[in-house]
């Protein structure tokens, strides 16, 4: 069974937000759109984004790490947002594991947003429907886009190629290899949501070993 997912390499993410706005522009005019912006030119502008980059600091000066952390729906294998939905609008596609919201069924009750431990859902204030990352389902299943462009917009955009996309159930896929070989990890496994998306950790290259010179 296919489970499409993103693997995000924190070792190279520089926090440029290319994934944030490339997602917005693809999806606002796509099948999930429009993604509305409230007060776009006023106080506290607030719009719908399927993907955001958070920046954290770890440690104390001078041993500070700055971590850029892109976050979107993790397309859990056991998604808590699906069973709580009273209208069946929240669903997981059997064919590829993508978790979606059916906007024609969604009543905007936000149960799914409460159930999601990752805060990955955003209520579109204009349409009053719940929205989230679709993994660009309309790109990845497209029959008209060139084959090498059948990837999520964020993956296509990412200048550091920090975003890998593929089938995590296929053990030979690029994403499975990356998870296996580079210490990929899931967020908050204790919630037993089995997130399909995973992250690759920072890797520090030490000073060149003088003994080997």
């Amino acid at each position: 069974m296919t489970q499409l997912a993103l693997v995000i390499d924190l070792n190279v993410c520089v926090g440029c937000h290319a994934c944030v706005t490339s997602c917005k522009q693809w999806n606002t005019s796509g099948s999930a759109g429009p993604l509305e912006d409230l007060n776009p030119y006023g106080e506290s502008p607030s719009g719908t984004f399927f993907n955001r980059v958070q920046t954290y600091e770890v440690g104390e000066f001078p041993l500070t790490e700055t971590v850029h952390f892109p976050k979107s729906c993790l397309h859990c294998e056991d998604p808590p947002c699906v069973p709580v939905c009273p209208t069946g609008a929240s669903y997981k596609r059997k064919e590829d594991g993508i978790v979606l919201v059916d906007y024609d069924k969604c009543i905007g009750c936000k149960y799914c947003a409460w159930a999601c431990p990752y805060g990955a859902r955003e209520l579109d204030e204009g349409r009053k429907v719940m929205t989230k990352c679709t993994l660009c389902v309309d790109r990845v299943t497209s029959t008209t886009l060139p084959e090498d462009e059948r990837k999520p917009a964020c993956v296509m955009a990412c200048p550091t190629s920090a975003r890998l996309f593929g089938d995590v159930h296929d053990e030979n896929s690029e994403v499975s290899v990356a998870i296996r070989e580079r210490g990929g990890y899931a967020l908050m496994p204790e919630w037993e949501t089995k997130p399909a998306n995973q992250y690759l950790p920072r890797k520090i290259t030490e000073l060149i070993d003088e003994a080997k010179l």
Partner: protein
Amino acid sequence: MLNLLRPTPPVHDPLEAPLPGATHEVKKTTCYMCACRCGIRVHLRNGEVRYIDGNPDHPLNKGVICAKGSSGIMKQESPARLTVPLKRKPGTARGDGDFVETTWEDVFVTLTERLAKIRATDPKKFALFTGRDQMQALTGLWARQFGTPNYAAHGGFCSVNMAAGMIYTIGGSFWEFGGPDLDRAKLFVMIGTAEDHHSNPLKIALSKFKRAGGRFISINPVRTGYSAIADEWIPIKPGTDGALFMALIHELIKSGEYDREFVAEYTNGLDLVDLADGLIVGKSETLEGEQAVDGKAAKPAFELLTERVAECTPEWASAITGISAARIVKLARELGETAMRQSFELPIAWTDTYGRKHESVTGRPVAFHAMRGLAAHSNGFHTIRALAILMSLLGTIDRPGGFRHKAPFPKAIPPGVKPPKSWDDIKPNTPLGTAPLGFPANPDELSVGPDNEPIRIDKGFSWEHPLSAHGMMHNVITNAWRGDPYRIDTLLIFMANMAWNSTMNTSQVRTMLNDRDENGEYKIPFIAVCDAFASEMTAYADLILPDTTYLERHDAMSLLDRPISEFDGPMDSVRIPVVAPKGQCKPFQEVLIELGGRLKLPAFTTAEGGRKFKGYEDFIINWETAPGSGIGFLSGWRGVDGDKALIGEPNPKQWEMYAENNCVFHYELPESQQWMRNWNRDYLEFAKDVAFNGSIEPIRIHLYSPVLQSFRLAAQGKRAGKQPPEHLRERIEKHFDPLPFWSPPLEYAATDLEKYPLNAVTQRPMAMYHSWDSQNAWLRQIHSHNYLMVNPLTAKAAGVEDGGWLWVESQWGKLRCMCRYTEAVEPGTVWTWNAIGKSKSAWNLAPQADESTKGFLLNHVISEELPQPAAGVGKTISNSDPVTGQAGWYDVRVRIYPAATDEPKETWPRFAPMKRMPGTGIAKKVQAYFAGTK
């Protein structure tokens, strides 16, 4: 579970194409959401922009795109777009922001009348200054044709130290002119670079480098952006990098872990310097020692460098930089050992200028990159010279794994283009005798008159700032207002926000823009502004020319300008309009061609006196540097049939051929010409043939700078020719040192450092380019306001809370803003994002928009001038590098203290709201962009 309804098949089909039956079209052009100039594909649905992605066939960005580039749609949608020509409402005061709509014909008639009169009488009274533009080949040509020396882009404010410091040392520089070879480097050291320059290519290269196991060290007071993924972060105090480099050179020479052969062969390290007058008098066999030349004592330049750094110990540098001596020693060892012991050979044969054949090129896998963090200090020129010399000692110049040039660089040291030398170069109704900007080689090439009076309004190339290769935009308004060196009549500003973030001392400069003389006339009589958006600057215009956006116009990114060349050869590119201009918007290029014709500037006029070019496209195709030269703005598809590269007759189909080829032309040099280009015979012959350089002389690296020494000799009264004024002799003697040195930023001498203990700097975020995109609905959601970023130790000592309001005070002024604690900054530095704060209602934002209520601009506490006691009481001089005129806007010192609890919770200073300009849009409360439904 709450599943009240049984799952039923989805109703909403996520795969269904929106807007069935819509038309789809893909057009290729070049991005301009920042200065990086990536190739893009613009996908249109029913003629509206559906999305913009990176062009996978473009050599610069190879299909990727950044946050800014992905938000181009919102630039088109912005209600801040100017759409009609405007003039100040008769009877209203400048700056009141009352405008009435006018016509383009009125604009052209007004400007033609005014400018024709100036040109016929005193052409220097017209000043053209442009912000970020990368169309300097055209704007510079236009100013030259007009006959005014008063032209520059924003480089003096931005990073001229980086350009001049390296060009005067190795003949090339970072970003457009060269960069790190991360494909082959093993160690990458990035210094004073925040998050940009060169945006996507650097991101692509960094990621590849890290994945290949390269080691990345970031030296910066702040850890953000690229530095986040560094393997090692070395915090440093701002303005002290030069001391670090001097100590690294000290350590390398001490340990012997540097490329002696390279130094001897390819630098002027063996040149014998007369110890009495510092002139080059011969060539030594050895790098060290002292010898006599014609009975006079002389030493090799390298010996002098060794002596110069003798006292620059790691301990000395540690006290200045805040980096421990042990860490400096370790860094030096790592640099030297990586360069020398991990060296490799690429089997690429090449021939040097002495005719010697080499079977390979030597790789030295240590690459550097640096930008504004080094440049924007008044000691930046020598800091950057020290870096270039460090890179040279490591043998990394145009070698695998090190620094690589990009065409048209390397150029002669200094390049042959010169600014005006005397008033004779400026005559009514005559083009300028020289270029407006250039690279003086000695004092006789300064732009000063017989009494040492500056020829330029910004005092560029005067004794105050002799090597100001990019001009000094940051002093134009202050100087014009004061009438020092003279008054001007008309100031034409293109795309520069001089009433806000593109100026230091913002509040005062805004006052100057409105100020009147004793007769009630404006001190700057006429201001015309061309911009696409209602910026702070447009409010001060007498005439506003609405520009197009990058999606609406033709552009040529020329090799005559700041091109997008790759390491392996010259490259230029174009923009082709993908949507129609909004309203009556007209590209500035078209405005210049039109005005050039009306003013009958020779380059734009036929022999019979008629108009020479139909418009910009026609100009780009047919203009040549000289009649029949075959060199124009674009180097691709030249020749009548488009089959010639770099040189060839005009090709009437040139635009179409660029359009068919991803809007980019890339000329790949033969492998034998891709390396060691300062000394590569075949490359230098090629470069001369295509007019990149004037000669095939090798471009030897200046460890010791005879150019600087010529100025020092003048200051010492030991050189014939132009003589500096008495009050500047000491300053010139000190700063025109032929060897690099570190001294504190000039502002410190005029500052009570105990009262103002903190350095304050700005950084540019990756998702926002200066002030350009506050009107962009998506990007402003990422950065709608900024905080002062403070180390908790520093903030707590000042009693300032995380999230609390505080005052930031320098000796020049103060501002109120919010504090954010951060562990990612060294405790002696505070910083904020540049140009996020906006004046109230500017850029057509709502009066309560975060940008003006919570956002702030650090420029309010930075001065454009410093006291100059040597010149007399009350005299001032630009707050800039004394060599290059680079604005020292990272030199400011501040103190911080909490705002009182009863103070308003909003940033200060505050300004009267800008009025909405006719023709701009009405901001929606809710925006739901869905392409193709209009």
